[in-house]
């Protein structure tokens, strides 16, 4: 039951084909080194859940053919422009996009976190987002007359996959203020985490670290991956590698360019196919 400490490849091997995988946005804790390991092992058929969006990670996985569905409020690489492989795949009809909105994804995960079948949510009524979604239903506030409100079905991912600054040997993971990572871990059946370092003290022994820590209870496995979020930046630890990100966007404009980028970027000789 205690979390296992694995190598990056062994961690990636824990994501089966077809899994529903929750991932955070580029400004949170994105397991990019693990994503390359996943691509290297040739994972297929993933259903990504952006919490609430995905960025470079989603674009890489889409480009490498690992994804059939993305459920997210957005696929965005921010100031770098449109996410190139995502945009190409959408135009080609190659992947299915379940367009959501940030609070609905949070609400769905919070329902799962609470073992609830659904959560109510304000807003959204009248948006085309609600069309064709059988996991959102119009209900009513039972404490008022004529007050329609949307009910959002729980989202319980198979796997939460993210990167954090540190973990301890017992498998507790320190995420600081990035509490959406805790929500993901609470909601998902399994939680796979890469960390900058595994520390030798108990993160729960002192409230100063415990306050930002996901207890091992919710963690399935951990792998150490120093700079595991590069080329993105990890809050106050390291900044983004702007040149590498621009190079990616440039190369990934075309399928061939993306393949060339991937051949140069994969962590080990195994090809994606």
């Amino acid at each position: 039951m205690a979390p296992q400490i694995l190598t990056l490849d062994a961690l990636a091997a824990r994501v089966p084909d077809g899994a529903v995988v929750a991932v955070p946005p580029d400004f949170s804790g994105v397991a990019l080194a693990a994503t390359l390991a996943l691509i290297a092992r040739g994972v297929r058929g993933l259903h990504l859940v952006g919490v609430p969006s995905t960025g470079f990670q989603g674009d890489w996985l889409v480009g490498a053919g690992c994804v059939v569905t993305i459920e997210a409020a957005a696929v965005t690489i921010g100031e770098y422009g449109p996410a190139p492989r995502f945009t190409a795949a959408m135009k080609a009809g190659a992947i299915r996009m379940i367009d959501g909105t940030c609070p609905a994804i949070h609400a769905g995960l919070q329902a799962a976190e609470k073992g609830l079948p659904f959560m109510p949510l304000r807003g959204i009524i009248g948006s085309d987002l609600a069309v064709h979604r059988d996991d959102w239903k119009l209900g009513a506030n039972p404490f008022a007359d004529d007050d329609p409100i949307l009910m959002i079905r729980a989202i319980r991912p198979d796997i939460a996959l993210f990167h954090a600054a540190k973990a301890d040997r017992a498998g507790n993971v320190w995420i600081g203020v990035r509490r959406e990572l805790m929500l993901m871990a609470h909601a998902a059946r399994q939680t796979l985490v890469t960390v900058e370092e595994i520390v030798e003290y108990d993160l729960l022994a002192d409230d100063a670290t415990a306050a930002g820590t996901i207890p091992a209870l919710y963690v399935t496995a951990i792998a150490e991956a120093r700079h595991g979020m590069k080329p993105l930046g990890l809050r106050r630890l390291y900044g983004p590698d702007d040149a590498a990100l621009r190079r990616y966007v440039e190369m990934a404009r075309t399928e061939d360019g993306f393949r060339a980028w991937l051949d140069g970027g994969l962590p080990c000789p195994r090809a994606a196919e």
Partner: protein
Amino acid sequence: MSVPTCQPEELLIATVATMLDGLGHIAVGAASPIPGAAALLARARGNGRPAISILGAVDENAFTDGGKELFDCAAEGRIDAFFLGGGQIDGEANINLVGIGNPRQPKVRFPGSFGSAYLYFLVPRVILFREEHSPRVLVSRVDYISAPGWSAPNVYRPGGPYALVTGRCVFAWQKETHRFRLASVHPGHTVDELRAETGFDYDLPDTVPATVLPDAATLSLMRGRVAGEIARTYPGFAARLWNVAAAA
């Protein structure tokens, strides 16, 4: 360093800032340097008020409860203003952040709706901001409604649009008629040009003032303190506009 009298972005920053003065708390989405700078300008001259939360930023963001906090905070009425854009915006203030054509295989795909479908309902003063003012963006009817501009009376909606600010003009939103009214035209642009460049119908008063240019004190505050502050979150923007690096 040579800076022109007032750069177009500076006009937009100053114009948006006047819509924020006196508010308590403003949230600004990621990748929104002009709204962000406008919020910082309002704060700089408001003696620390409004408070500002720039989403996804490490600085200028006090949230400590994860991605959900913005949305909870808005629903509690603790956020007075927010900004939304749109790949398309129509005359009923509907916005499209999803795409053009069949959503399953779109001709054009935008990043996605983000929190628009929710915040547009809950934040009292949503300022639509889009620099590009063209019939391509300002359409008669959006292809896809990420978030509707108005709702039926029985739908809980304390929030909604307040104004639409573009690179050419300011439209004020009219809650009662669900239509925009041309409020001011930026210097260098004309009412006729706007008519040609706007795909939706809007109310046109007999006289339309020019958008007020920022005064010297405002420009000085913007180019000094605000430039240094915004550079911490948008270094490229601050460098391009004012040739400054981040304040400590």
